[in-house]
């Protein structure tokens, strides 16, 4: 019984939120890693691309809600997502046409690309502030919980409940579908194989007759779609706040580098490792230990490794340690 309560407590405050957060980071890191694999630069504008996608999805969601169109228990945003993806892909492809292609023709240094992407990031942030403003928006609708804290307690009779929000389930399910589709595309289709060949060895791929512009276009289409889905799911699960997408860039890059740059499997792995580290390191284990320990006993302190204020420090530490110890990441990737 005590063990069941301890598990429920941990699931409620660590496992469930970290799984949803990990899925969101994994989708973000996949986008960054694919652009790195094909275009060979760290795309700092990816966070704002996520924000842009979420913004378009929100606007369409509002339009649908105004006309009374919904998905019943599921969030209306899922219906609006395809439009958001189209707009984000258009945004990504247009910035490539007008900004990144210019530097690609000049065969610019990767560091120049990275700095250019910072410029693109600021430009996109400006557009987002003009269109939707700096305020936060909550756009989740439908059923709020798959199972709420109170219902779970009633069902099991335990002291501790596990609350599972509907948005957390949606996040994980959508991530599974997207990741499965992406891996199928990269492994099985002609275009996917062409992309992997191009990523492996650019010159050899060119000699085999692979059209580089087409590969780049597909890479941006994939990155744009992933960004829009990741941004929308993050905003759906928490709240949409334009300022957040600059901060979330740090854990996303940490996940990308940890998993191995340019490695899609590594990006997913990295996303979950970063999310679980962030949540467990800043979680206070006092009550968890009290359940496991003898009756009536509780630790005096909070048993917390790091205060929650330092959540982002966890990503930094992971980043620094990986770069020092194993710069290629878990799955051997490229080195910046």
């Amino acid at each position, binding site marked *: 019984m005590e063990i069941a309560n301890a598990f429920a407590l941990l699931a409620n405050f660590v496992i469930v939120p970290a799984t949803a957060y990990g899925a969101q980071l994994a989708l973000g890191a996949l986008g960054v890693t694919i652009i790195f694999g094909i275009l060979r630069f760290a795309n700092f504008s990816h966070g704002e691309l996520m924000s842009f996608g979420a913004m378009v999805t929100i606007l369409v969601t509002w339009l649908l809600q105004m006309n009374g169109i919904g998905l019943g228990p599921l969030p209306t945003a899922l219906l609006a997502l395809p439009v958001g993806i189209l707009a984000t892909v258009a945004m990504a492809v247009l910035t490539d046409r007008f900004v990144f292609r210019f530097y690609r023709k000049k065969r610019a240094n990767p560091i120049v690309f990275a700095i250019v992407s910072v410029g693109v990031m600021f430009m996109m942030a400006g557009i987002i502030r003009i269109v939707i403003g700096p305020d*936060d928006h909550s756009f989740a609708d439908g059923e709020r919980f798959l199972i709420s804290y109170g219902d779970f307690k009633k069902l099991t009779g335990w002291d501790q409940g596990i609350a599972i929000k509907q948005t957390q389930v949606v996040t994980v399910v959508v991530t599974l579908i997207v990741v499965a589709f992406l891996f199928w595309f990269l492994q099985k289709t002609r275009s996917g194989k062409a992309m992997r060949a191009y990523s492996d060895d650019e010159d050899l791929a060119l000699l085999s007759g692979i059209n580089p512009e087409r590969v780049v276009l597909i890479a941006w289409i994939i990155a744009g779609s992933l960004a829009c889905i990741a941004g929308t799911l993050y905003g759906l699960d928490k709240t*949409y*706040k334009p*300022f957040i997408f600059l901060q979330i860039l740090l854990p996303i890059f940490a996940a990308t580098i940890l998993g191995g740059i340019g490695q899609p499997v590594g990006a997913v792995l990295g996303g979950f490792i970063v999310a679980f580290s962030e949540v467990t390191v800043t*979680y*206070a284990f006092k009550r968890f230990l009290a359940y496991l320990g003898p009756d009536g006993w509780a630790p005096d302190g*909070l048993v917390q490794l790091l205060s*929650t*204020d330092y959540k982002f420090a966890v990503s930094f530490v992971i980043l620094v340690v990986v770069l020092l110890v194993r710069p290629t990441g878990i799955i051997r990737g490229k080195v910046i």
Partner: protein
Amino acid sequence: MKRLLPLLCAAVFSTAAHAQEEVKVGMLQGFTGPTESLVKPMALGGEAAIQEISDSGLFLGGKKVVSVRGDSTCIDASAATAAADRLITSEGVVGIVGATCSGATTAVLNNIVRPNGIVMISPSATSPALSTIEDDGLFFRTAPSDARQGEIIGKILSSKGIKSAALTYTNNDYGKGLADAIQAAFEKTGGQITAVAAHEDGKADYSAEVATLASAGGELLIVAGYLDQGGKGMIQAALDTGAFETFLLPDGMVGESLTENFGDAIDGSIGTNPGTDSPGAKMLAELGGKKGFKGDDPYVPEAYDAAAVLLLAMQSAGSTDSAVYKDHVEKVANAPGEKIYPGELAKALKILADGGDIDYVGGTALELIGPGESAGSFRETIIEGGAWKTVSYH
């Protein structure tokens, strides 16, 4: 040129003569920055009091009073200092209503007010640190210190038999000061604060902060934050994870948008914010309706009272010299004397001119205590059926 010169001279002298008739009061408020929406009605409220006194024709034998605005920006202490310096040295104000935020007020008090010996009355600086600051008797405030709100919260919690609570605050001077005051007061009544966690405003997710507080436990969660910011996020995360069901909400959290957001999910939560059941508050709201300012917006009554008390003290002293009238501020604000409500400033001026005594009540039931700050009257509310209900006044 010969014909122009006398004209010019006449113009110069006439403005000089005109200026002698006019008394200038500085309205030093955070017109730009994080409090700009709060300040707009405040400044109008303060200026309404100034206008009322000026129009009465009874102020110091018929002198006119005008308000000169200066921008204290709330967060930029050097800008606030420069604005106060301009008001005193180039505009020649005889007293200041301001500044808005505690940080700016402290800077202006130390760098400008004390060296120049000018009286300053703040309507909205609530930091407990301003109670003990060295002020040469020049600084007053018509808003109560947060230490006072902490005491009242401690009293409310112990009267409800609550023994333990978790505490979270917005990570700035206001949040930290208020949290410290609440913790000290609650522990003095025998209660226990199980954990204190700061939260940053402007984040999308507060589940980690709530997880920490939930682990420490407590009968309810005290949220010393802002209702449209992190405070709302903390409550949302606490409800989602079932960590806390009832909350204690100090002034920054009391507002309609909170109940619109959560409805009856937070029934039983307790709120405290400055408020009074004195008829003055209602009279000021009515007066505002006629004069075109919002008399019941936050800190508008405080601003009206600050300007009124400043000028009434001058009338009582018969002088606009700060060194003389600074001793009259508490005299006009407190008993004994005829009670003065909003809109009755002309009557007050007349009583003072005839050598009588007044007890200024104004919109906030003003009573200056200790180092010249409002004793403060607080409203205790409870959320029932998704709406705020007033329980009592403290």
